[in-house]
């Protein structure tokens, strides 16, 4: 009798523990990624700064670069809001992860073409001295942020989420 009880407890403990921790980890990822996105958006203001950063990648015609420069920070804010509210958590996380993949692709393309630019991830942007490029750090950072998004997308269940009120990921 005693023995079986002990056995049961040890058998279920790992999964119980994960089930207790996971929602809080998801919450941490939601808040972490949201904070990063808000800082990224705010430092890109005024739009003249972000348009310049986009143009430095030398990938888009003037008008397209302008549109991206204006709307990207707004999109980052919107995504951050979804993560903070926990609305459509899984999909917000997935979009965040995809966004980071797109950013990494942009940085890799700049590297491949031998451009010497600041990624413009958190304001700044534009040309820098070739010795001052920080592509490695920028990519590593985006990988970490992308991982947070992916975590939320895979395990969207978390406390303080509007999704729960609406009956999703309970």
């Amino acid at each position, binding site marked *: 009798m005693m023995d079986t009880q002990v056995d049961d407890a040890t058998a279920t403990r790992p999964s119980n523990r994960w089930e207790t921790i996971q929602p809080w980890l998801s919450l941490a990822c939601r808040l972490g990624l949201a904070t990063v996105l808000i800082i990224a958006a705010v430092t890109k203001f*005024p739009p003249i700064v972000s348009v310049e950063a986009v*143009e430095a990648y030398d990938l888009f015609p003037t008008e397209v670069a302008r549109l991206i420069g*204006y709307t990207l920070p707004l*999109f980052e804010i919107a995504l951050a*809001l979804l993560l903070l509210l926990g609305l*459509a958590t899984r999909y*917000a996380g997935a979009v965040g992860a995809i966004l980071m993949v797109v950013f990494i692709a942009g940085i890799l393309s700049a590297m491949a073409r031998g451009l010497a630019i600041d990624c413009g991830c958190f304001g700044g942007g*534009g040309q820098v001295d070739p010795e001052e490029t920080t592509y490695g750090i920028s990519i590593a950072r985006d990988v970490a942020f992308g991982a947070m998004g992916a975590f939320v997308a895979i395990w969207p269940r978390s406390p303080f989420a509007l999704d729960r009120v609406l009956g999703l990921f309970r």
Partner: protein
Amino acid sequence: MGSEARKRSREKLRQQREKEKRAAQRKKTLLVVGIAAAVVVLIVGVGYAVLTADRGDEYEGELAGQTLQEDGSVVMAQEGASAPVVEVYADYQCPACRQFELLNGDLLKERAAEGEAIVHYRPVSIFAQQPVPTSSNSLRAGAAARAAADHGVFVEYNDLLFEHQPNSEAEGYTTDELKEWFRQTDAEDAQVSEFDERVDAENEVVTEFTEEFLPALAADANEQIGEETLGTMVLSDLLNWGAQNGYDPSFLEGTYTGELIDATGTAYTRYSGDNMFRGTPSVYINGELLDGNTAGTTRGLSEAIASAGEGEVETEPMGDGGDAD
């Protein structure tokens, strides 16, 4: 038999319920994703509308008169206008200057035409010490803009240069391009040939300066006074040091390239304290440096001009008058 049938129908019912439950869940997910998408569209849409609300239409009207100044800068203003003086320092190879011009160039033209601002364009070359082609692009374009000012079309040419700004790591603002753009300002034949000659002559000066004179001077200075001190010197200081150490800068005399280098050196000493000139673009109203949010938004610049008092242009018009009107 009977119990077997009941079991089957129970199973069917259970599957039916499962299916309905899944459908309901799917519907719920779609609804939530729909709400989320609507939130995103709303934020991006409203935000974009707010950010671009103050963007005026492109200014197509007549430009206020342009007057070439002794130091090679250009004042655009209604004749006899009493208004705030807006000084714009820009380097043609500087991407942020291009953004400023694209965003607020038309506002400045409009305010000048309305007599509500005296716009003082002060081209500089903060990149003159950079490696080629950044330095050569910057200097060649600045010298060409100065040549365009001789023919009274500085403002139009300034627009064309920024519109076509090359990547700073690629050879750009070539003499052919510079000549072609001048033709787009509806210049007359006589002006065209004069302009072309000037651009070719300046190009030679720029090439000598950026590829021979300055690298040799910089290397020598680096050895003799050390990298640290050198880092604190602006270009005109370095040229002065060179003049005393066997690097004769006289080939720059009388050239627009030399004038641009001088104008840049003077900019660094013109203001003090918080108003110190540090880089481009720098926008001053009546000698007060504007911060990035003010100069970098149309609303900010527009309000700053509206709330400023009358100012005084500090340079004198070019003596011979030329044909700068």
